[in-house]
């Protein structure tokens, strides 16, 4: 029997990890996700875990897990997190939104290969799905907008294997609008090098206004640039990117392919 070598297994995990993400920006946290979903739950609550899965796996490892990395600092977490892990369907009653809450932050990850789904209040329109194949671990996080004061429930469906779910009420920052300058650059459907660089410059200036420095090599066809982790975590980088550079960046990179 040919056993997969470590290098082969690592390569497969890396390839699957890149393939699995839904969009370039939101894939940022793919690999930290498995170990990243629960720490806030453990750190803030300890005993506030809502558990309904058939194989509870709460222990030392989970206590060391990090905050779901997709939640930036500009998102206010307004409730103690609910945590669920198991191998079969489970449910978490998250109650009514606390004052100021406008969304549920939901983080769903494979602990073992399988297909897992999440629905809020049984509504198919809210379904989020995570699939992991043999040797692949992953998942992701997203926000489900909620309005009104009714009580809510989060359900998890599972095929085989075990999953881990983290849910909390949050107050999201205002939706970022694409700036007039970026809209103008996108208007004709073609992104020129000048428009691409000008968009990047506006993005850098936006960051600079908040006190963050972005370093870049402007001679690269596709700009190689760096920003501090603090800028990303603060949410400022994400807002500046969406407003000034995001769509230009994506269209430029796609245009340079192949």
């Amino acid at each position, binding site marked *: 029997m040919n*056993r*997969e*070598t*470590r*290098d082969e*297994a*690592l*390569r497969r*995990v*890396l*390839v*699957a*990890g*890149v*393939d*699995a*993400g839904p*969009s*370039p920006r939101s*894939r*940022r*946290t*793919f*690999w*930290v996700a*498995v*170990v*990243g979903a629960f720490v806030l739950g453990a750190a803030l609550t300890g005993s506030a875990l809502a558990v309904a899965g058939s194989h509870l796996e709460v222990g030392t*490892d989970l206590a*060391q897990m*990090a905050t779901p990395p997709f939640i930036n600092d500009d998102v206010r977490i307004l409730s103690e997190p609910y945590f669920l892990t198991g191998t079969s369907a489970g449910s978490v009653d998250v109650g009514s939104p606390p004052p100021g809450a406008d969304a549920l932050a939901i983080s769903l990850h494979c*602990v073992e290969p399988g297909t897992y789904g999440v629905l809020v209040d049984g509504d198919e329109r809210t379904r989020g799905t995570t699939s992991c194949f043999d*040797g692949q*671990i992953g998942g992701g996080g997203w926000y489900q907008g909620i309005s009104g004061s009714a009580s809510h429930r989060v359900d998890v469906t599972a095929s085989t294997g075990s999953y881990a779910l983290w849910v909390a009420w949050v107050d999201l920052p205002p939706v970022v609008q694409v700036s007039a300058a970026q809209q103008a650059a996108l208007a004709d459907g073609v992104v020129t090098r000048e428009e691409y660089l000008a968009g990047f410059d506006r993005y850098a200036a936006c960051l600079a206004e908040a006190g963050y420095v972005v*370093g870049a*090599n402007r001679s*690269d*066809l*596709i700009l*190689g*640039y*760096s*920003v501090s982790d603090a800028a*990303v975590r603060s949410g400022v980088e994400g807002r500046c990117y969406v407003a000034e550079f995001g769509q230009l960046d994506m269209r430029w*990179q*796609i245009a*340079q*392919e*192949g």
Partner: protein
Amino acid sequence: MATDEGDWARAIGGDGEAFGRIFDRHRDRVKRHGMRLAPTPTDVDDLVAITFFEAWRNRERVRLVEGSVLPWLLVTATNVGRNLTRSAARYRVLLDRLPPTADQSDPLERVAVNDLVQQFDALSLADRQVLTLCVLEGYSEREAAAALGVAPGTIKSRLSRARRRLAGRLDPIRILNGEPHES
């Protein structure tokens, strides 16, 4: 030097196989560098995996130097090696699922590597980064400056200082001469 520019752009666009080619291209170099940083074969394996995981996690901050992501990977490996235990904790579940590698290294070579690891541990992170790129891997000061995001003059002064600190600790002739390293 093969260019990663196209594969990197494709990977950013969601093409996993493109990232796989980058892994194929640089895995061995990262591993060789890892042997300078980690004390055991298992630690080296973890360091290699974490370096590529971190490369993807931080992909929006990756700097390509002359079309290559390797300098950034080497710097990342150096950073990971600085506190491997903490770095590994983040990816423990993933690392535990990877099959182990049989240790095929020469025991005498490992003694030499362990000595190098100890000497490297005594240096600051900035010293390790600049020595990794300019001395051990043979990159120019300009390329190292691009990879680390600092001015070439800064690299020159850091390199000079790091060489002085390392002088007498390990293979002083090679280090002082700044010859590119090749395993």
